[in-house]
Structures are given as structure tokens and as C-alpha cells.
């Protein structure tokens, strides 16, 4: 099977060293690592937003051979920063996800509902909280209908319920055949993913199922903390949604 996202010897001087990885369709992948490990750099390089050495392929096609508009339809990227300088209404910002589709508005309303933004649709993005702005970025990415979704710390600023909803959304996209790569800091949340990538100082030091990769030894090595497995409160979305 052709991987949805392929990178070999992907490198950005001083930030990322020869990372090679394949992400398949239908895979939900977590990217973890300490601050400055290169998570955002890797995500941006995979998205073609950063000059990088090495090879990146989307669905087997070399990135350099993919036209800009086609890129906009093939992969969606959500950055860590969600700062908007101009007071576009929320609906307009989400509708920008349809740029590469000639601004055909299908999916915009659904994306707003999905990220619980319908009631804020007319509000200027400059008058949102940090968490709400992140949800606008996610809704815009969702509106692109791109099968590959790269989200850089999407839940760091969200409350527990919205964070769980974003995770449920990611799972649903993956179940429909998509590929979702999510960077995060919450190692406990990483256990809910199909696969975990661990970056440390620009190198890929872990790549596999969460229970195989996120061992106490690796966590100690990479994050310099002691990890113990204990029972604790685990919030879940209720059965009725």
C-alpha cells in the first residue's frame, strides 16, 4: 500500500536530522517530544511549508510535483499559533479552507458545528479566546476536506470536553480513511493513538504502538522525568455525546 505521507532523510539544518517515516491511510499518529525537539519543524516540513532537505511524498507523489492548489486540497495544517490580526468573522475564516476548491462553500457549516463554533459564526476572530481561536483553525482545516491532517498541538489550550471532541473528530477522520498526525505534550493522551512518534533533539527516537514506544525507560531518557503507571481519573465523553 502507498503511504499517505512518506518522508525519507528529511532534514532542516539545526532543527531536524534525517527523519524517515511512513504514515498510512487510516492511521491516527501522535507526535511527542520535549520543547525544542523539532515537532513543529517536522510537521511543517511534511506539509511543505519549510525549505527542507530530503524527500517528502504525499500519496506516493513527490511534493515538488504537486501544484499549490492541489496541496491545499491534499493536506491541511493547523499551526501552534492561532493569532489573527484582522477581524474576519469566524465563518469567513473557516470558509478560507475552501480556497483551493474555488471557494465552493460545502462543508463549512458542518466544520463550524463539528468544532462547536456555530454560535460564534458571526463573531470577529479577534474577539475570541485562545482556545476558541484554535478551534477556528481546526474547523478551517476540516473544511479543506483534505485526507491528510497535520495538527500542531491542537488541544493544548482547549478545555477537557473540547479536547475530547477534537480527539473523537480525529478518530472519525481516520476511520473514514484519513491520516491524522497530532503533536501533543500530554503523554497519557498519546496512549489513545494508533502509533506514537517520539522526537528528541531533532531525531526520531521512537516509532511504534504507544505501549511499545512509551516505556518508562524512554520517557526517562527523552523527557527526563520518572513515569509510573497508576490508576487515575480519566475523563471521557458521555455515551450520549
Amino acid at each position: 500500500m502507498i503511504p499517505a505521507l512518506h518522508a525519507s532523510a528529511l532534514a532542516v539544518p539545526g532543527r531536524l536530522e534525517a527523519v524517515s517515516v511512513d504514515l498510512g491511510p487510516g492511521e491516527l499518529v501522535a507526535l511527542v517530544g520535549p520543547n525544542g525537539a523539532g515537532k513543529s519543524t517536522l510537521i511543517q516540513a511534511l506539509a511543505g511549508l519549510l525549505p527542507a532537505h530530503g524527500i517528502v511524498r504525499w500519496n506516493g507523489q513527490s511534493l515538488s510535483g504537486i501544484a499549490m492548489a492541489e496541496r491545499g486540497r491534499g493536506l491541511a495544517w493547523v499551526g501552534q499559533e492561532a493569532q489573527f490580526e484582522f477581524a474576519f468573522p469566524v465563518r469567513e475564516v473557516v470558509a478560507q479552507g475552501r480556497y483551493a476548491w474555488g471557494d465552493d462553500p460545502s462543508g463549512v457549516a458542518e466544520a463550524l458545528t463539528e468544532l462547536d463554533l456555530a454560535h460564534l459564526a458571526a463573531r470577529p476572530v479577534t474577539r475570541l479566546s485562545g482556545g476558541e481561536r484554535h478551534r477556528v483553525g481546526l474547523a478551517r482545516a476540516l473544511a479543506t476536506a483534505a485526507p491528510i491532517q497535520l495538527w500542531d498541538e491542537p488541544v493544548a489550550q482547549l478545555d477537557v470536553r473540547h479536547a475530547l471532541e477534537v480527539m473523537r473528530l480525529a478518530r472519525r477522520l481516520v476511520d473514514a480513511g484519513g491520516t491524522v498526525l497530532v503533536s501533543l505534550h500530554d503523554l497519557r493522551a498519546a496512549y489513545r493513538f494508533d502509533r506514537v512518534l517520539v522526537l528528541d533533539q531533532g531525531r526520531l527516537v521512537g516509532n511504534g504502538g504507544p505501549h511499545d514506544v512509551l516505556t518508562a525507560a524512554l520517557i526517562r531518557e527523552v523527557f527526563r522525568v520518572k513515569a509510573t503507571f497508576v490508576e487515575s481519573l480519566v475523563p471521557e465523553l458521555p455515551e450520549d455525546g
Partner: protein
Amino acid sequence: MRSRLAIPALLALLVLAFLASLAFGELRLSFGQVLGALTGGGDDIARTVVRDFRLPRALVGLAVGAALGASGVVMQAFFRNPLASPGLLGVSSGGALGAVAVLALGPMLGFAAAAMWALPLASVVGAFAATGAVLMLAQRGAGTERLLLSGVALNALLGAGTSFLLTTTAGHFEVNAQILFWLMGGLESRSWEHVWMGVPAILVACLLLLPLGRAMDLLSLGEQSAQSLGVDVRRLRRQLIVLSTILTALATAVAGIVGFVGLVVPHVLRLAFGPDHRRLLPYSMLGGATFVLACDLITRTFPLGLRLGVVTSLIGGPFFLWLLRRAR
């Protein structure tokens, strides 16, 4: 405000300002006389005043205002900063220095600075040289912050050059007055030659900008996100810089430095109608043209030696402050 009414309302204001520009002045004409003169009727004096003096002046004013309004929108989207203005990359101060250099050095070098084409040409050369220098200093593909800082540095340098020439010519009253005229902008004695020099190219650049509005929406909310959504950001940035430079350079070449239009007009219209660039671009062209014509009318109505560039700032500044207070 209802955006459906924006274009008709802005157009009506522009037509009004344009007709008033043709009617008011030392010789007060009625709108009927103006229309008569335009269509070839009326008396000889009215026809000469309207066709040879006021019409070219109004056309130059209209084009300068539209150019500065549009250029302001472009720079604000480019730098993702509502406080950016057309002169940010040194275009207008480069244009001013070019013209001032011809005015100051021309007599010494023995060529006539009065030659119709000499000043505008020197101004355009100076403007493009300045922007080129900023782009080179900031290096190709560098981030907007670096570009901005290079622009600030170059603006200071060019301003110093202009001030130096101004003080070295302090003994020559005539030259000095011409330089000041240039630095404060104005539409006095604009002729049909100035119309042909500036207006067609400004019109073309404005028309080329209009289809870029949608991509500018995306760019104004972030370069990387715009690129990820399918905008060819490198190409767009190049197009925007070139068009904005052409607009500001030509406006400066035919009217000197006219400040504040590019900042205040897009800002006001954005507050009134929202930040959508597909609308903001044409609105700012119309609004900028109206604003410059109205300010020029004021310089003519109150003969206090007011200069166009002074009036735009004198009116634009307080109005802007009032608006900011109200918008909170």
C-alpha cells in the same frame, strides 16, 4: 453598515468630489457650466479653466488617491498589520529623494530640472531603487519582520539624504521652495502630461490588484496557513510588492509625498465594511480618490498656503483618532 450600498455610496461621493473639483476655485463655476464645458459647450473661459486646468488636476488627484488607498491595503495585508502604510519600504522617501536630488543638483550640473519629465522620472527611479534596495538588504525570501526593519532603516537614510539636500540649498530660495513643494505633496499646476504619466499605469495596476483580493484575505491571516490552504505565497508576495511599488511610486512622481491616505482610508473602510479584501480593495480605491480630491478642495478653498500632504494629515489624523476611540 450595509455593504451592498457601499459601492454606490462611495461612487456617488467620488463623483460629487470630482465635480466639485471642477467647479470650485478662483473662478467659481456652476455644475451646469462644468457640464457644459466638459461636453464642449459653454463660454471659452469656463472651457479653458475646466479642460486645461481643473480636469487634469482632478484626474491626477483621483488617481493618486486611488493608488495610495490600494497600496495601503496591500501593505497592510502583506505585513499582516493594520498600521502598515504605502511608504513602509522606502518607496515614497526614495521617490522624494530622487526628485529632490534633481531639483537641488540639476542647476549645478547644468540641466533644467524644470523639464516636464525630469522630476517624475527621477522620482520613479528613486522609488524603485529604494524598494529594490530594501528587498536586497532583507535578502530574498526573508521574513516580513526583516523586510519591515530594512524599510525603517532605509527610510531614515533616505530622509537624511533629503534633509541634507534641503539644507545645502537653503541659500537658494527658489530651489528650496520647490523641494518643500515636493515633500508636502500637491496637485497645483498638474497638466495633461502628468495625467498621461501617472493615470493609465495606476489604473492598470489597480485592475491587476483586484483579482488578488481573495488570496490577500488568506495571506493577511498568516503566511504559512495561506500556503497550506493552497495560496502560492511567494508568487503572491512578489505580485503585491511590485504592484504596490508601482502605485506608490507613480503617485509620488506626479503629486509628491501625500501622507496618511494609505493608512487612514483602508482603516476607516475596514471598520465600516469588514476586512474582506475583495471589497476592501475597490472601496479603498474609491475612498482614497474621494479623500484626496476633498483635501485638495480644502487647499484651494482656504488659501493659507496649505499643502495637500499637510491637509490629508491634518484631517486624517484627528479623524483617525476619533474613529479609534469610537471603535473601542
